[in-house]
């Protein structure tokens, strides 16, 4: 047996053919997680019963594994007559799971904005919506760019979880190749290396963006 480097190399193009799926899932999940996470944080901040419930939901999500959420949504949604394909289910699961973390990121970002900002908005009689969109959100984004970027990289690294639902992303393709001739080591090594390079590239890109954002913000 042994490790066959040629086989590993030959599996690279096949795995890379699923790069688009991986990136699309990651991007959709990032957007989904950011939207749900921001909504969670706004509801939590408003307080009352809704705030307390949301606080519990965020804590619950953060205390449970993403794999369990994948199974839960995959088997439970159809039970309620909601039929979504495996990719859609995976995107919902990743969005929901990471929204719990992003809510905390948004919280820290909003807490870091001086109180005077929202008081000034009130004094100028801006509506709550205008205050959020034009006063809070732009300042918050600058505060949270680094942790937000890190979580986006985490989401990218979580996309191979979708392979357990037989979604044809990169790890799924690697398993397809592997199970054809029962040699797992080489395609998995190739997939692992591709993901590592991708994660490092994306995190370098995120870091650059952060720096630009920081510079553009300082006057």
């Amino acid at each position: 047996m042994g490790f066959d480097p040629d086989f590993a190399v030959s599996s690279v193009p096949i795995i890379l053919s699923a790069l688009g799926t991986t990136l699309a899932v990651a991007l959709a999940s990032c957007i989904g997680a950011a939207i749900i996470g921001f909504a969670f944080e706004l509801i939590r901040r408003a307080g009352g019963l809704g705030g307390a419930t949301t606080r519990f939901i965020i804590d619950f999500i953060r205390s449970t594994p993403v794999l369990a959420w994948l199974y839960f949504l995959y088997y439970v949604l159809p039970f309620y007559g909601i039929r979504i394909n495996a990719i859609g289910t995976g995107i919902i699961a990743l969005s929901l799971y990471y929204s719990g973390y992003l809510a905390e990121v948004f919280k820290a970002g909003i807490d870091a904005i001086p109180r005077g900002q929202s008081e000034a908005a009130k004094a100028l009689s801006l509506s709550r919506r205008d205050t959020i969109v034009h006063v809070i959100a732009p300042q918050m984004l600058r505060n949270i760019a680094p942790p937000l970027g890190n979580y986006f990289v985490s989401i990218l690294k979580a996309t191979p979880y979708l392979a357990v639902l037989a979604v044809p992303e990169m790890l799924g393709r690697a398993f397809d190749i592997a199970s054809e001739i029962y040699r797992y080591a080489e395609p998995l090594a190739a997939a692992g290396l591709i993901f590592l390079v991708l994660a490092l590239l994306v995190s370098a890109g995120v870091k650059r963006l952060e720096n630009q954002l920081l510079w553009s913000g300082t006057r």
Partner: protein
Amino acid sequence: MTILDIWLGILRGLGTTAAVTGYGLVFAVPFALLLGVAQYLTRGIARLAITCIIEFWRSSAVIILLFFFYYTLPVVGVTLSAWTVSAMVLGLNAGGYASQAVRAGLQALPAGQREAGKALGLSRATTLLLIELPQALVAMSPTFVNTLIQLVKGTALVSLVTLTDMTFRAKEIAQIEYNPIAIYSALLMAFFVVCYPIALMGRWLEARIGKSGGRFGGI
């Protein structure tokens, strides 16, 4: 099958979940301490090499690492049990994250601490062990608690390499009983019951460290 049976069935996997976590810590703690300190102390090529090792474990997708080592080690003649492979992969991944907290904690200490050690005639090693590390580890303890939660949640993955943890038990029950809502919500609840107290402990630690005024007193 009643709800209670489902709960008891899933809890049969709690021992495995706990064992993998404990065994994982055997890998995670030394890895985080040794490499975090090494990254802090070294410069140049040595530091680059250490950073590469940390990044390999930290930046790879953990699900791929697990499959890769599970399938590849036997091919190159290393036979480890699924237990050891799981504990090693999950542990070193968590250890990689924790190593960054160790390094950041050491770097955040005022230089006066090290200089005072030197002025007292303490060796570099003694200064590190008795002055720098205790302060850094206490300051970073909330981060370590978060990493521990990630490790516990990460153990759900071992169900994919034949270990009978809570996730595995849930899937097993799902095969004989069509009641996905009860089974998978019980699985989520089971993880919540395990992880939420740990999260509360982390919050308590954080408040305690924050309140103690001087960042490092108190505990």
